[in-house]
């Protein structure tokens, strides 16, 4: 085989300068061929949706914004054991533990609680390993559709307990639902 005909990729095409015949010069056949392809696509399934009116179905494994859960009595589950921070591959989580005082028994479930719990949303990759590592069922990645709200300041992306802990009214709703069942 000569060097001119070798095609390592197998896609080599030889270009010719052949004169077109009269029928070919009319382009009629080519237009019909093209139209067949176009018309065929009119009857296939649409790949686009009308976005704000229509929304796609969420994946069952979708992972959105984190939430620190409360139990049925409205107490925080988190004990600041540090396993989420240990498992976090992006090192996005920091926390500081504190001892619960006797008058705070209705706020925290265990002896120890996280006085500071921060997730750096610029670092977080939403892998869900924190949720998997948590021994206390405290941190969950919700199905919330906003992942991280946009902002101009970097400081705004470090989410503290004010943004992460489950609001009390949702905890109350959950408790009522559980009692109703």
């Amino acid at each position, binding site marked *: 085989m000569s060097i001119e005909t070798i095609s390592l990729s197998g896609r080599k095409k030889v270009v010719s300068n052949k004169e077109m015949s009269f029928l070919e010069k009319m382009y009629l056949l080519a237009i019909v061929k093209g139209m067949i392809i176009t018309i065929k696509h009119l009857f296939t399934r649409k790949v686009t949706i009308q976005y704000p009116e229509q929304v796609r179905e969420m994946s069952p494994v979708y992972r959105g914004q984190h939430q620190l859960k409360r139990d049925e009595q409205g107490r925080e589950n988190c004990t600041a*054991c540090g396993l989420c921070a*240990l498992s976090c591959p992006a090192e996005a989580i920091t926390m500081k533990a504190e001892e619960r005082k006797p008058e705070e028994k209705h706020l925290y479930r265990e002896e120890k609680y996280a006085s500071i719990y921060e997730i750096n949303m610029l670092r977080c990759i939403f892998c869900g390993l924190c949720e998997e590592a948590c021994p206390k069922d405290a941190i969950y990645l919700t199905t919330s559709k906003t992942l991280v709200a946009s902002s101009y300041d970097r400081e705004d992306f470090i989410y503290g307990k004010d943004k992460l802990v489950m609001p009390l009214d949702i905890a109350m709703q959950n408790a009522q639902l559980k009692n109703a069942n």
Partner: protein
Amino acid sequence: MKVTIDGQAIEVEPGTTILQAARMIGGESVPPAMCYYSKLKGSGGKCRCCLVEVAKGSEADPRPMPKLMASCVTGCMDGMEINSKSSDRVKEARESVTEFLLINHPLDCPVCDQAGECDLQDLSFEHGKAKSRFIEEKRTFEPEDIGPNIQLHMNRCILCYRCVMVADQLTDNRVHGVMDRGDHSNISTCISKAIDNEFSGNMIDVCPVGALTDKTFRFKSRVWFNKPYNAHRECTTPGCCGKTTLWMFGDEIQRVTGRKDVYHEVEEFICNECRFDHKTTADWVIEGPRAFDKDSVINQNNYTQELETVVIATEEGILKGRDQDRKKISMPAIPLDKDEEADFKQGNI
């Protein structure tokens, strides 16, 4: 005397226990020990974690021992053959012992300060079941204050008696001990006295679980977020070596402990002044990072482990290159001759 443990033979002195002989060999066949502490006289024989099977009693009497023996209190005999990890009976027994130890243990590792360096965690990780079969209510005790430095969590205690022996052997008067009997037995001080002896802090180090923890470190950080360093200071307390491990977070000393070896036993005991009162780096001479077991969680994000060096199997000296080539790149150690230099500049070599 020659003993064989899991097929590995070793020569030992008369009077050595099986556990000590196994530790001389090291590796997988070392039985776990929760109550035995080589630095404390009379410790051992309580937790039954270190049970081993004696397949051959001795050269003189080769019958096997009918029951599993606690290796920490059984002396070696000449020609003894012992199965530790290789025996299914031993494995099953250790599994059961672990289950029994965990019956009344609260399993509050996420809260406990000992988590990460806890012997009971290691034991249940290696020998325990994944699930608890215990459905009854666990035994609990009222929390008791035993002084400003040491926190007692009686619920976590496994009654190994190590702390009692520390108080007996290191301090001059013991004010705490095991009260009551059977299921009710608990560590307590004599009518709510505070433990304030100068060496009482060693109770924290010897405790295999989180029953006795450092109050100055309470809930400050998890063990694996700290960076351990070897350090020492000139300690004036008689009997204290001043050699410690500092657990640092940034520049802050969060905790001071004795230096623990691979079996989590302190090398030397330290005094309370070193342990609780010196929490600034100016007080200490830092020697360097402390190395831990390869699998320890304390090594998380720690790069002080020794890395394996890559050895390329070639002829010796082949990587150095030929003599004339080494001269070509003008190594300062092998300088060119005067006339060679002129040639080299013209590119003739």
